[in-house]
């Protein structure tokens, strides 16, 4: 099995990679630290799994050479699972890339990383609800402190391709049930 770590630049993909594989890839606090991919191995439930630290990319429509490397890596690995690493304090743009990967049919799990930074900024995310809408595992993490990594690994097997129509339907549904519940409360 092969797993790609993908996400925007500077969201902590290399930190995940080091945590997962025990490797020592350079981590820094600036976008574009990783400009080439790095491969490593880990064992999940007895199975050898290849992990790839992919350079950060904003979308699947590359704007520089590091992003070209990222998109080529994804397209070469048709049978791979993807861990989409999202900066929780910048969730919308992270979801944009995650949606693009979902639309291409890859099985995916989402790591909502840097939960601490989001909390600093008073941003609260309902991860369970996000999980229900997207239909894939969503795990809150603070990778640099090692929080949430185990849960992320244990839920990798739940990664599956989802249909975009289902997400659209779910997004509409939750708002319906929500407003219905509100109405009920008011009555």
């Amino acid at each position: 099995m092969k797993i790609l770590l993908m996400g925007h630049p500077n969201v902590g993909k290399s930190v995940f990679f080091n945590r997962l594989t025990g490797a020592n890839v350079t981590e820094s606090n600036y976008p574009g630290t990783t400009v080439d991919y790095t491969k490593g191995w880990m064992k999940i439930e007895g199975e050898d799994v290849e992990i790839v630290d992919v350079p950060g990319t904003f979308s699947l429509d590359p704007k520089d050479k590091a992003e070209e490397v990222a998109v080529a890596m994804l397209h070469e690995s048709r049978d791979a699972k993807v861990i989409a690493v999202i900066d929780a304090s910048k969730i919308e743009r992270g979801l944009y890339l995650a949606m693009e990967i979902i639309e291409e049919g890859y099985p995916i799990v989402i790591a909502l990383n840097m939960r601490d930074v989001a909390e600093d900024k008073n941003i609260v995310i309902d991860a369970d609800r996000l999980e229900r809408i997207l239909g894939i595992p969503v795990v809150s993490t603070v990778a640099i402190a090692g929080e949430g990594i185990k849960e992320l690994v244990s839920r990798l097997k739940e990664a599956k391709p989802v249909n975009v129509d289902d997400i659209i339907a779910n997004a509409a549904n939750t708002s319906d049930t929500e407003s219905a519940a509100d109405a009920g409360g008011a009555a």
Partner: protein
Amino acid sequence: MKKKLSEMDYAEQGTVTGIEKDLQKRVAGMGIRVGKKLRMVTRQPIKGPVDVVVEGAETSLGLDMAGKIVVEVTK
């Protein structure tokens, strides 16, 4: 009052009302989209880049790009 982002003053805030088409995709990746609230932090001298904060995230963009973004300044 509508202003180009490149013409905003220090610490002015507002809501993005328009972005030229060729730029939309690129700045969307930075969280700058129509309808988003934005605060201008600073501008570098001699046609330097403009620094803005959108939803708590800081982005720096070149002056020409900033000139293609229109903001309804609120304060």
